[in-house]
């Protein structure tokens, strides 16, 4: 899951010189993920992982890192 998220984020949303070296706990918001990017990321995750991510949970802490994103998606699935 993280591989797909990483690929989408760095191919579509954020420029990074070495995306493979971007840590799973590094801050995506500091790296440039903006509000429009967050919505596109959420829609990608919903489509790709067949999950609904509630509007009320669209918070910085849920999208701040790859690990947080993965946790959010897995929780929403269960």
């Amino acid at each position: 899951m993280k591989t797909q998220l990483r690929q989408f984020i760095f191919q579509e949303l954020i420029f990074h010189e070495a995306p493979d070296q971007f840590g799973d706990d590094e801050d995506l918001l500091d790296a440039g993920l903006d509000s429009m990017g967050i919505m596109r990321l959420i829609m990608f995750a919903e489509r790709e992982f067949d999950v609904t991510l509630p509007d009320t949970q669209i918070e910085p802490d849920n999208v701040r890192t790859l690990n947080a994103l993965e946790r959010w998606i897995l929780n929403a699935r269960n």
Partner: protein
Amino acid sequence: MDSKRPQLTQAEPLWFNPADYFTFVLDQEIRGAGMPGGYCGFVLELEEVPDLSRLQQRLDLLVERFPRASARLEQRGKRYAWMPTGRRIALEWQTCSSREEALQEVLEIFNRPAPMAETLPLRLHWIGDDRGGLLLLNWIHPLLDARGGKILMDFLCSAEPDKFGESPALIGEKLAQWSLWKKIGFFLKAKRHNAEANALESCLPTQADEGGGRQSLRLKMRRFDPQQTQRINQLALKYTGAAGKSLYTIGCFMRAMEQVGPPAAKAGYCIPYAFNLRRQNAPTPVFGNHLSCLFARATREQVTQRQGLFAHLLEQYRQTVRDELDYAYLPLMWLGQWLSPARYARLLRKQHSGGELSSLWFSDIGDLRFGPDGFLGAPVSGMFHLCWMTLPPGMALLVGQGNGQLTLSFSYLHPAVEESWLERLMARMDAELLETPEVGCALHTEHAQGMGDADSGGQCPPYGVP
């Protein structure tokens, strides 16, 4: 030269991409109404004089690296292209005695006639004053979008200019990834979406139309200090979540306009905003427009409920992205390249009734940070933006956050937009953004009292140029 960089000779035409052509259509409409054209400005407020000779060297490097920076526009058959001239972009500079005078000079530059054949598509002005000065990057929209303007400013002051490069149009790259059927599907989706957007007659900030006589561009600004900016960001997070910061500003604007009373009162509000195809922080592509268009729409009834409005705009945005409407406009824009500017404008920008679709031109330039070295050694104390727009709507709101301070730049046409009305609107906008206590009762009070009074209710002094 970097081998990855396109090896262009000065004779090669650099074709417009579909979004360049769309902005060219708008430029033609603006010129057709007797105004200079689709020019945009990005202004840095500097506390000292930057290294001007280094700046000129960097401008020379810009023309060498990016031939379209100094080019003339040519029509070839039905399509348009930039023809590089290699002509030097000379830094234009002057000195003013005060910041007010320097701000006035910015507007004078913008209001000068700018025939396409005689004007460089991109110019840089240093306007020195008693507090340092203003650095104005002034360009014509088909050349690059606002994000490109920011990247270009970064190039001009970067210690590593080599990391900036030209690359193909992102719209072309996206279109190349899709099958013919996917493109047709998107095209039909975009057409349906456009028809839906057109069904809601838009309130406008002026009753004047293209025949409204000679117009000049004016500017009013609001700057919020870091504490106020932080509060606004927190409120945006509260009402529109991490995914909808721009929507908070757009919603506040709709409510402010509804409270003050729209001069052309119709069924609702429609505010187009750009969806930028560039990745955040990417140093390339610099030139060209890499945009698609999204619409924030609400009926006047929806605007009356603050929380409900933000929830509506967020849901609308979510649905737009879910339906891939953010991409749907690309095939439409691609086909639009073969239409004449007038026909294209009618199809994409006007409502079925012939009225103007946009209640306002809006752009959120985002959050910019300038380090302690500032711009070529000069600390940056602020920034603002300005642009020409069509009439109607006759007004543009350009939003940017520089070093933690939010600035709202209202460009507007005078006399089409009434200034006392705009002052009241800006005051209401302050109150909406900051959610000051009177926000909850504002709509009720002002509907009851008509236009309401000119009391600001906001906390930020106007910082404007009449």
